[in-house]
């Protein structure tokens, strides 16, 4: 009930009306409500909720290439409803992103050269959650960063889509969750920990991208 109330309030205000900081606090508040809710259902102590909150606060410091630059990619949606996106084959009705737009996205992020398989042009709010092809919704997401990368975000996209279509979360809320900080969303709705095993397996086949100016996030100790 608390969760629904908070999400509704955020949805009514809209992302544009919230500052990034305010949105972040609102998200953390939602996360805490989720954590408490989960803790109650699993008869876990209150300390579990506090730990979860600490994880969220550290994730809020993530920057590109793990998460998009919200000034460049705040997220953008099509005028669609849950009824639209839950029809099988919905994504195929949406036009592919033109190559010229993809090039512009790379330029916006200062990426002038890249190898095949380094990045995908990702819809921050995924097509299956009603995201648009606007340049405001596109960013170059790395396949090679660890532990947060394009493969991991796909799992969150699928889970939020499943929940929207099951009616357990409304579309506007799902869009806001993934737009504000998809890593936080992953921890809340998919798994509190990043998929370490899968990331290590991929590390054998892909050289990891390690930006010099950005610290690598540490996987929390379970």
């Amino acid at each position, binding site marked *: 009930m608390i969760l629904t109330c908070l999400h509704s309030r955020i949805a009514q205000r809209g992302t544009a009306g919230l500052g990034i900081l305010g949105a972040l606090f609102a998200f953390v508040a939602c996360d805490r409500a989720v954590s408490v809710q989960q803790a109650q259902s699993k008869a876990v102590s209150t300390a579990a909720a506090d730990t979860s909150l600490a994880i969220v606060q550290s994730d809020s410091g993530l920057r590109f290439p793990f998460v998009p630059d919200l000034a460049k990619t705040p997220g*953008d949606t*099509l*005028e*669609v409803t849950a009824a*639209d996106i839950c*029809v099988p084959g*919905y994504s195929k*009705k*949406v*036009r*592919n*992103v*033109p190559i*010229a*737009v993809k090039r512009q996205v790379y330029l916006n992020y200062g990426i002038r050269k890249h190898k095949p398989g380094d990045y995908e042009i990702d819809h921050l709010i995924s097509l299956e959650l009603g995201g*648009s*092809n*606007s*340049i405001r*919704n596109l960013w170059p997401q790395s396949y090679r960063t660890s532990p947060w990368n394009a493969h991991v975000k796909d799992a969150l996209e699928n889970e939020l889509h499943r929940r929207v279509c099951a009616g357990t979360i409304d579309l506007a809320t799902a869009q806001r969750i993934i737009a504000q900080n998809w890593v936080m969303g992953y921890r809340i709705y998919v798994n509190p920990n990043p998929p370490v095993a899968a990331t290590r397996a991929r590390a054998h086949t892909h050289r990891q991208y390690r930006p010099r100016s950005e610290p690598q996030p540490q996987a929390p100790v379970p």
Partner: protein
Amino acid sequence: MRRNQKLTPVIKGRSIADIGWDGATALLHFDDGSVMRIHTPTPPPKNSPPATLGKVRAVRQSSEVIVFDLESGSTLQIPLAEATSCVMLRDAKGALEYAD
């Protein structure tokens, strides 16, 4: 200008029956009841000539404009507000048929 390969087969053969405006959004009404919404940079001038109507043969699109090639040989050009995310088509029942 390239043909829009995804939209052309969807609306080929439909006739544009009417064009209306909702601010800067053009509303193309087809003879089968479907409606296409196109976001444009600005509303049309008040004294603009009536738009060309007819059966669609193909659709071409660039980052600035969408062009409907009609079977009569004439064309209907509508400017776009941005390169993507401006065109949406719903059928007579309101189901989504296409978005860009």
